[in-house]
């Protein structure tokens, strides 16, 4: 193992820990919006994970997957946020 392999391993461990923490926020909330923040973080972290894959393999054919996940994360987060907003208005 050389320095590059160690850096891949360190990156994977730190990103993995981040995903766990983000999922904690996603599950614990306490409000819908906290979950939304957690969700958007998870999606960015997933994209970072695939970028790590690109680095490990030296192969950029994963970019389509990255864009797809980024797009899904964006739309999901925005929808959830708008939904929360509508419920806030209904309550008034």
């Amino acid at each position, binding site marked *: 193992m050389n320095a590059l392999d160690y850096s891949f391993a360190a990156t994977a461990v730190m990103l993995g820990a981040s995903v766990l923490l983000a999922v904690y926020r996603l599950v614990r909330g306490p409000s819908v919006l906290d979950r939304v923040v957690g969700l958007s973080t998870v999606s960015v972290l997933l994209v970072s994970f695939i970028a790590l894959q690109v680095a490990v393999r030296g192969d*950029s054919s994963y*970019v*389509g997957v990255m*864009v797809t996940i980024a797009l899904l994360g964006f739309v999901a987060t925005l929808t959830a946020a708008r939904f929360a907003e509508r419920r806030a208005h209904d309550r008034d």
Partner: protein
Amino acid sequence: MNAVNGAGMRLLGRLPMVLWLTVMWAVLWGDASPGTLIAGFAVGAGCYVAARLPHLPVRLRFRPLWAVRLAVRILWDLLASSVQMAYFTFDRPHRVRGAIVAVPLRTDSDLLMAMVSGGLSLVTGSQTIELDREGGVIYVHGIPIRGEGDVPRLRRDVRRIEELFVRAFGSTADIADFEATEHAMHAARAAGREER
């Protein structure tokens, strides 16, 4: 004749967006052969028509020097605020306080206002809460704010970002507008100070 011209102008106005979609298509395919470009153009135009996207009357200029300044400022602030927030993450985060300030904007172009309000979420500890387009006032949440003394700094940051966006992307008329409002505000502030 007029109707044909109108339709032509409409298409021309949408061309930049379709071209941008074509470029994204080519980048995603990873090749720029004529076939890919034509297919990308067709798909882009098709989506644009099918989605009935609104036509924005884009009257923007692009000034590379100011755009570079803006990009440097945003990248630097992004990095600085990340480091700053990382510090507070470990140093008693429950004691960090923020503030919501109202900053009157000096531009009245909707597009520039939208850019400023988006750009603010990228710079040091600030984030748009509400944009009052009619009143031209932006409400920005800033963090960390240690006390009243930090509020003017947040205001100054917001105004600086606004100026950079206007100078990088505003049309000549937008800039003239911006400077006129700036002078008016400056004069009003100076007058207020003299009265006191």
